[in-house]
């Protein structure tokens, strides 16, 4: 655990990619199996342990520490696991090998977990306590992708990164065969049928950047607001992967049934009824499920819009230019009315494309994708061949109603704001935003909050309705969970309107008019959307303004899923 803790600490503070690689490579070289394999899997998020919940940790804390002293400490430190690691009174006794820690978390039953965790914390030093808690909560936050970690593996020996990626899927931690291979042993057999292949990702762009490119060298398609998936059907084995390689077949049996062809295809997962594409909000209800009810399968049928072929009838098309792959795609027969192909948009100039983007034929389109005609299919996010040009965010002018103190770097600053819109003569809270402003603006907002506080609720202050803020967001859905009946997706502060009188802020009806589509399952959807969001803080359950609407990013990973803020946000 000592070496693993040191590794996590070094990686967490090291900004440079190359230095990270070097630190990881050195660790992997000098650490024996199976510890290094478990460490590797923990870093890349592939170690599936019983997730210890924040609630369990809070329970441990409540038994041992004065509530007020803990709350003051947490407020300063800003991270629950870190606060516990620092505040815990433990005496390091020997060292707990990482493998033993993993086995303990794998084998301990739910009832025994709290005392088992406390027992481990008692005999570790502070850095090891933090490493253990991060392992147990499955939240390492190291900023190390699986691909980068495998790059470190590739640096250890002969096999190249591509060699490793091809055999990777289906291998299980602690990967003894891979470490044997990179240190001179035999190449492992590809373990899985219908493996996942690294997905090609795009970079954001805008009209100004596009003008430097030749439109004739590019094609464009609608960017649908669904979930990016890789559908693989090979030798009778069918799997549906998220773009990060997570197997999500279990949630979409209706689509799996339709995959009667032979190949690996890249496309957008959508809910479709009689050819009509449903909103992302409706698709959300199909997510996060191990099994799906018959009723849901009928009310929310899944479909696939294919935009690329990686493998088709046994042939690896990835090295071939996009237009060659498209020719095969357009000639392919998917033998299903749930599967169709993404059509190319006709355009001659970037301004033509801008006009199309400005007026899409369907509400579930969130922009356009632009791809180079001659580009091979390359895993990762190469800059250049693929671009996304998303629609401009929607905005409302809202009034600041509440503010909550931030944590960590923002400790002591009021940085999380709840906004409201007019409904009759009253303001109704419609959402929260906690980024989109500069550090200097944060200081001004903090000053405004302190000078205009009307009431205090723990870390939250009610603020006199004096300040209008332009809030940008990606979309809006009905929600029974919010007092206002609406929930914004990915709201953030676009501009602070110091100049604008509050009476001129927008009305709730304005926001309601932007709702993508009516939805009977809204409550479920709101829950699915926040389940994987940021851990709630102390007292968070009682916050005015209720839930924190978030992009449903983390889960299956939409194209924008990796915590990348939308263009235009700061």
């Amino acid at each position, binding site marked *: 655990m000592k070496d693993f803790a040191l590794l996590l600490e070094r990686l*967490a*503070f090291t900004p440079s990619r190359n230095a990270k690689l070097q630190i990881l490579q050195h660790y992997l070289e000098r650490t024996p199996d199976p510890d290094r394999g478990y460490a590797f899997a923990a870093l890349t998020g592939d170690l599936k342990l019983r997730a210890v919940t924040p609630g369990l940790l809070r329970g441990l804390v409540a038994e041992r520490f*004065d509530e007020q002293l803990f709350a003051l400490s947490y407020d300063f*430190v800003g991270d629950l696991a*870190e606060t516990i690691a620092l505040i815990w009174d433990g005496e390091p006794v020997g060292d707990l090998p990482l493998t033993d820690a993993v086995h303990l978390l794998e084998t301990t039953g739910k009832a025994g977990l709290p005392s088992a965790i406390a027992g481990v914390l008692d005999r570790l030093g502070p850095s090891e306590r933090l490493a253990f808690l991060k392992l147990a909560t499955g939240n390492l936050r190291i900023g190390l992708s699986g691909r980068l970690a495998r790059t470190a593996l590739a640096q250890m020996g002969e096999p190249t990164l591509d060699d490793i990626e091809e055999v990777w899927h289906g291998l299980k931690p602690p990967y003894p065969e891979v470490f044997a291979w990179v240190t001179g042993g035999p190449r492992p057999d590809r373990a899985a049928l219908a493996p996942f292949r690294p997905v090609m990702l795009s970079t954001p762009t805008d009209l100004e950047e596009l003008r430097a490119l030749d439109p004739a060298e590019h094609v464009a398609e609608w960017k649908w607001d669904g979930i990016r998936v890789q559908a693989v059907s090979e030798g009778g084995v069918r799997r549906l992967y998220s773009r990060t390689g997570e197997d999500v077949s279990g949630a979409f049996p209706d689509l799996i049934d339709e995959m009667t062809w032979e190949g690996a295809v890249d496309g957008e997962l959508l809910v479709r009824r009689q050819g009509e594409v449903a909103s992302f909000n409706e698709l959300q209800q199909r997510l996060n499920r191990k099994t799906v009810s018959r009723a849901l399968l009928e009310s929310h049928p899944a479909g696939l819009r294919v935009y690329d072929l990686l493998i088709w009838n046994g042939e690896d098309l990835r090295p071939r230019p996009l237009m060659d792959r498209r020719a095969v795609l357009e000639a392919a027969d998917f033998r299903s009315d749930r599967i169709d192909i993404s059509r190319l948009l006709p355009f001659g100039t970037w301004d033509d494309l801008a006009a199309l983007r400005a007026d899409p034929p369907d509400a579930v389109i969130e922009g356009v994708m632009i791809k180079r005609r001659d580009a091979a299919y390359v895993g990762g996010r190469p800059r250049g061949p693929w671009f996304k040009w998303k629609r401009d965010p929607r905005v409302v002018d809202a009034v600041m109603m509440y503010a909550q103190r931030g944590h960590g770097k923002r400790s002591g600053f009021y940085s999380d704001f709840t906004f409201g819109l007019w409904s009759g003569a009253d303001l109704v809270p419609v959402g929260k935003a906690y980024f989109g402003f500069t550090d200097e603006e944060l200081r001004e907002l903090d000053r405004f909050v302190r000078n205009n506080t009307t009431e205090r609720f723990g870390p939250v202050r009610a603020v006199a309705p004096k300040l209008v803020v332009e809030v940008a967001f990606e979309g809006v859905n009905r929600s029974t969970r919010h007092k206002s009946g609406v929930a914004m997706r990915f709201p953030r502060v676009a501009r602070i309107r110091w100049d604008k009188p509050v009476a001129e802020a927008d009305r709730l009806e304005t926001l309601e008019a932007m709702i993508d589509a009516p939805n009977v399952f809204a409550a479920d959807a709101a829950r699915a959307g926040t389940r994987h969001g940021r851990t709630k803080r102390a007292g968070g359950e009682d916050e005015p303004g209720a839930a924190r609407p978030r992009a449903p990013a983390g889960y299956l990973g939409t194209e924008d899923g990796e915590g990348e803020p939308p263009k235009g946000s700061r």
Partner: protein
Amino acid sequence: MRADDFLYPTDAGLYCPAGDFFIDPVRPVPRALITHGHGDHARAGHGAVMATRQTLDIMAIRYGEDFCETRQVADGAARVGGVEVSFHPAGHVLGSAQIRLACDKGPVIVVSGDYCRTPNPVCAPWEPVPCDIFVTEATFGLPVFKHPDPAAEMAKLLASMAEFPDRAHLIGAYALGKAQRVMALLRAAGYDRPIHLHGAIQRLTDYHVEQGVDLGDLLPATTPKEIEGQVVIAPPSAFASPWVQRFRDPVISFASGWMAVRARARQRGVELPLVISDHVDWPQLTQTLTELRPDEVWVTHGAEEALVRWCALNQLRARPLRLVGYDEDEE
């Protein structure tokens, strides 16, 4: 008279009317007693200043010989008006002292200044001074602060230098005390190559050497080609200046008790945080209060709220002294 008639906070700092003097005043006053030479405690422009010889020397180095009108070396007990005043080692930086005030017909008050109980090779160790009222700092007054063994932090630095042998390791450390402590810790860890110094810490480091602190071979950090892969010690402010541009891909390190909290280290863009503090941590703070067991604890700069809460839980009378003007980051 009540205890807080003998010593109370004012806009200029902590004031003792019986002796008509201030302790560590933040603006110019006729008579000042100074606990130690850090800039937020020791300022220029007072009339008469009483402090330890080393603190007076340090103030003269920082502000020039004319930093005050008259100075008096604290040496044994001295009378100032109706108060017997004495200075006792605080273990914080070279010359640092706690100030004991025995007021005629009044309580014995000890003002800790900043203090540290971890052995520090560059200054005299902290001494317990029995008192009725203990005025304690609370810079690290939260139970999350348990400073690790400084030797373990040095081991981290040496491991990083082994991992990245071609990169200069730039350690941010405050010019008075921390910088010299890091040098002494490096020597204690067996590091015997020259240590390179930023110009701003040269004079205070020279003064430590004059006072008998052995810091080994020290060189100015002026010849960048030769200092790749070496240790360079600089004041943290230097990291925001173009001075850093002379180093190719340096490892930025910072020696401070705040580095125990990751968000603080990230905020400063530190790649190699070293948790080395010249202040008491939470166990030492609470141990000190338990051992001294004064009638009353007054808590000054830092996390007053948590320490006052701990005192309440441990049946100690305590209250926060809301002093202004001290920089808790000066560590």
